[in-house]
């Protein structure tokens, strides 16, 4: 070169210098790695990194469960009243009280009680229900009721994802359009209106006023359906009792819609914001410059990146679902874990409260672990370096 002896150098007022480039590079890395950073993913070359990570998270799960069980144990017993008053009423004789207290082991020091509880819990024995279903082992109460809540939550989450993600994408691509404004308003209402109220409203309009959907319960009693797993929709499908499956599904609809509003709003808004960010990215422009069809640009280049923060949020929504289930099950009279919780608190059923709360906490932690692993599956920056 050097036809004229010019040495390569940026001319006056040249564009991005090193500082700016460094900034951009850092921002780019951060934007990808931030959620991962929050997850504390190891950044190693080996696949064993992910395995180690999983093991560590399971270890954390154990610690969380033990700590929670201690706190829960103490906290429940610090509440006024107690299972004895709940069982016998305020006007029971001293003697009968004392007998029951001894029977339940409540006269022993708290740490002894806890120690015994822990020993039994490790064998799967969480004690006997004193209030929700008196006389039934708490574990059995949990297992009986769990499918109803799980069915409801899964359907609610599916609704939230199936509506929230496509709508979030469309709203972002037509930013400021009527669909965008409408869905933003809708999602705001979804967050602002209490689940309890919304559940009542839905029930009133669709079940009572118009009578198009059932008002309560999980399935019509007269159907005589077989219940193998306790998941009624699944049961119906497995046994090919289609009418039973359909009936259970129809019963789920209103509560699931009520329960899905908050997760929907969160997923919708995050998808929208994330898509708005991603369409501005240089790599989307690169994809367009290659003349790829709209489908490939949308799916492979926009959505795959835009889904990263959304995936994390979906895990966090498990919490909202479980707390929302308490209210929803109440309104629609569904014999699930949420109902067991509210009954358990009313009747001071230590055994049932303990097993339900510990189990849901574990589910929450496990779901979020799965979500983190799913995140790593989408984002190679967390798997390799």
């Amino acid at each position: 070169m050097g036809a004229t002896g010019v040495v390569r150098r940026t001319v006056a007022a040249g564009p991005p210098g090193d500082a700016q480039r460094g900034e951009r590079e850092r921002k780019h890395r951060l934007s990808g790695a931030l959620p991962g950073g929050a997850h504390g993913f190891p950044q190693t070359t080996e696949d064993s990194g992910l395995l180690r990570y999983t093991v560590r998270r399971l270890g954390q799960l154990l610690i969380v469960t033990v700590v929670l069980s201690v706190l829960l144990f103490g906290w429940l017993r610090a509440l006024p009243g107690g299972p004895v008053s709940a069982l016998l009423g305020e006007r029971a004789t001293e003697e009968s009280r004392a007998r029951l207290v001894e029977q339940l082991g409540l006269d022993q020091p708290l740490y002894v009680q806890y120690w015994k509880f822990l020993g039994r819990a490790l064998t799967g024995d969480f004690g006997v229900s004193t209030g929700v279903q008196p006389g039934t082992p708490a574990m059995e109460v949990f297992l009986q009721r769990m499918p109803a809540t799980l069915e409801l939550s899964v359907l609610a989450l599916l609704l939230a994802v199936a509506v929230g993600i496509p709508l979030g994408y469309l709203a972002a691509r037509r930013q400021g359009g009527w669909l965008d404004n409408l869905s933003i308003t809708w999602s705001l209402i979804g967050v602002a209106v209490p689940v309890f109220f919304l559940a009542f409203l839905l029930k009133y309009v669709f079940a009572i006023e118009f009578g198009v959907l059932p008002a309560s319960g999980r399935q019509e009693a007269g159907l005589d359906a077989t219940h193998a797993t306790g998941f009624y929709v699944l049961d119906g499908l497995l046994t090919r009792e289609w009418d039973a499956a359909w009936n259970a599904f129809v019963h789920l609809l209103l509560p699931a819609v009520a329960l899905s509003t908050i997760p929907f709003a969160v997923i919708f808004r995050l998808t929208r914001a994330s898509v708005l960010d991603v369409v501005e990215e240089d790599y989307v422009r690169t994809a367009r410059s290659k003349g790829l069809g709209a489908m490939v640009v949308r799916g492979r280049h926009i959505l795959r990146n835009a889904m990263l923060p959304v995936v994390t949020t979906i895990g966090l929504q498990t919490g909202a679902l479980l707390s929302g289930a308490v209210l929803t099950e109440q309104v629609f009279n569904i014999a699930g874990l949420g109902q067991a919780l509210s009954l358990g608190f009313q009747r001071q059923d230590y055994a049932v409260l303990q097993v339900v709360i510990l189990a849901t906490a574990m589910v929450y932690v496990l779901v979020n672990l799965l979500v983190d692993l799913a995140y790593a599956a989408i984002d190679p920056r967390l798997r390799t370096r």
Partner: protein
Amino acid sequence: MALLEVRDLSVRFVRRHEPTVSAVDGISFDVHPGSTVGLVGESGCGKSVTSLAIMGLLPQRGTEVSGSAKLAGSELLRLSRREFDRRRGKEIGMVFQDPLTSLNPVVPIGVQISEVIERHRGLSRRDAKREAARLLDRVGIPDPTRRLGEYSHQLSGGMRQRALIAMALACEPRLLIADEPTTALDVTIQAQILSLLRELVAETDTALIMITHDLGVVAGMCDEVNVLYAGRIVERAQRHELFSRPRHPYTAGLMASVPRLDSPRGQRLAPIDGSVADNIPWERGCAFSPRCGNALAVCGQRAPELETTDAGEQLRCHNPVDATETVERADD
């Protein structure tokens, strides 16, 4: 006939609550097969917007594009998005400034190359993958088959730009647009990427539009050079003529601000006075006149037209630098 004919291309960004920006203001130039044309100028003078307009990649909302850009005689500017998608990547390839952000971080490099091959060359997935490996090898990436499965964060800056060049050239386009392809790279890598581009373009007889603010790049790559200022071409000449006899004061200023091997030791570099913030709108006069050492009274009153000089160059100036005055250069 020219491969690409750009005529009177203007791009305006119309924003609510903000003054309209006239980013490109009546630009015309030709690109012939196998030749390299430079678009040179300071940051913000409209180089990228010109290339994005030709590629149909400007944001659709709030953008007014007028004029014409014909590729092999067929108009690009009025294509629908779908029609554009059939030609982008196939007939025109583009390489962008920042290889890090221009690659999708969650899609393997191999897929990002083979997708364009599948799309335009109708190859099966397997053949496209093999072709992608061949391309990676061609742009000088070692161990290409392994690289296909890697992601952008696993590549160095230079490799990333090589991969992007492989994508842009995957369908052997007749025209390649490179928008500051080396600005984000280390100096040693810059030279490698430039020589790779030069080699590929020569080999396949591809026409190249080289966008840069770096006169060194121009000197090493371009046959013809368009100097842009505030959205207009102020000087157009063959590379040799431009460097040996810059006529526009702005071009001359650019050259004076670059160190030269043959300049006397200790001589100060002379950056151009002021900044683009001092510009006046072209409607009122020459946009460069407030910064111009040669400015006359007329410069602030009436904008000069782009005219052909006796030497056959194109020049937009009322009072050009005298040809004899600046000739201190020497070697060729």
